[in-house]
């Protein structure tokens, strides 16, 4: 398995969506939209490009398929490696958030900036 570094947001959200259970393509798109508060709506091209990479890396696997009204639906599942990668990414983001929070707190405790009076010409 290749450890993902600098995981992009769509990839992270796809893994997060699959953490809740097996989903087919359109199910992943809907779940990603919900997770991102409607901000990110994946196109089919982006979704299947990401799924292809995730399957090659062993983070996602296909666990079944069905045909509804002539349309093929495949169900995807997060593998153990995928769950580990997602967990690592969550920890990484938590660390970044903790650092950012600390910096923000530090900024609030700073004295207000002194404004210089305009120099007389």
């Amino acid at each position, binding site marked *: 398995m290749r450890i993902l570094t600098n995981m992009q947001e769509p990839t992270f959200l796809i893994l997060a969506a699959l953490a809740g259970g097996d989903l087919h393509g*359109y199910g992943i798109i809907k779940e990603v939209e919900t997770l991102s508060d409607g901000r990110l709506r994946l196109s*089919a*091209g*982006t979704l*299947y490009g990401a799924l292809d990479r995730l399957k090659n890396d062993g983070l996602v696997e296909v666990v079944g398929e069905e045909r509804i009204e002539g*349309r093929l639906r495949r169900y995807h599942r997060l593998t153990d490696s995928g769950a580990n990668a997602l967990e690592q990414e969550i920890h990484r983001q938590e660390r970044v958030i903790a650092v950012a929070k600390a910096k923000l707190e530090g900024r609030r405790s700073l004295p207000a900036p002194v404004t210089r009076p305009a120099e007389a010409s």
Partner: protein
Amino acid sequence: MRFGDRLCRWALHAYPRDFQHESGEEVLGTIADMQDAGAKRGVLRQAASLGYNGNRLRWLRATDGSMRQTLRQGAAWGALLLIARQAGLGIYELVRPLWLPWARPSLLPQYPQTALSVVEVALFVGWLAVFGLLASGRRRWGLPLLGLVLAGFVAREVAFSLSYGGHFSWAFTLNFFLPILLPVLCAFGWPARRIRFSLPVIAAVLIGAVVIAAARVVFWGVGFDPLGQGYVWWWIQVALCLVAVVFGILAGLSDPRWAIAGVVVALQPVVREIIAESAGSRLSGAILLMALVPIVAVLLAFRASRLAVPRRG
């Protein structure tokens, strides 16, 4: 089948063939699900996304993602496009002497021969064969044949300049940069991994080459003023160029090899024009071009020796 479905099915061809077989139906099913649910994204945008991501997937699978490999493959693609362009211009060279007296009867005394030139036919067939061989991955035959065709091409240019007294102006020899650029690209840029264009790409490149040749015949070869035909023709040209540029940018964004190939193709006329503008002196181009033949031979031989696989045992 709705137009949108057809469009998405067509856009799926951007993906590698195995992906189309394994996941094509699933992708189309997902798009249909999105459309049924009243997706805001139009079917055009879905098709564009398929084209972009499919092209990108081809690149990611064909290279290890390194800039070196991408540059080499892009340069080799550029060489293939230049070869296809030469095949297209070969049609122009063939048709022009037949077309010109017909379109401009007043020029007939200057063009008494309306028969096909054997040299031009040989060059046209040669360029086409080189493109076919190299685009289908047969470099062992394609590269030596390219050397032969380039030698014929240079010989024709030399004969042309000699017929004008042995001297020429740079601007006269329209493609003098090609005998330098192509061997360099093929000898040093050709990647060890086999290059193979898909059939739709081969068809598209050849159609593009024929369109260039047709445009030259219609707009430059028959000697009439394009503006005399009205601005409709001008707008058609502008629109076609815009469409080509948009497709080129999209292809280049998703697969940088197309961007590199585009730069190579654009480089040739740009450098030609720069030298044509700056070189007012009358250098003996014939001698220069004759010197290119051994350089071509040496470069191709060097590359061929590097491609050779040592026998075991």
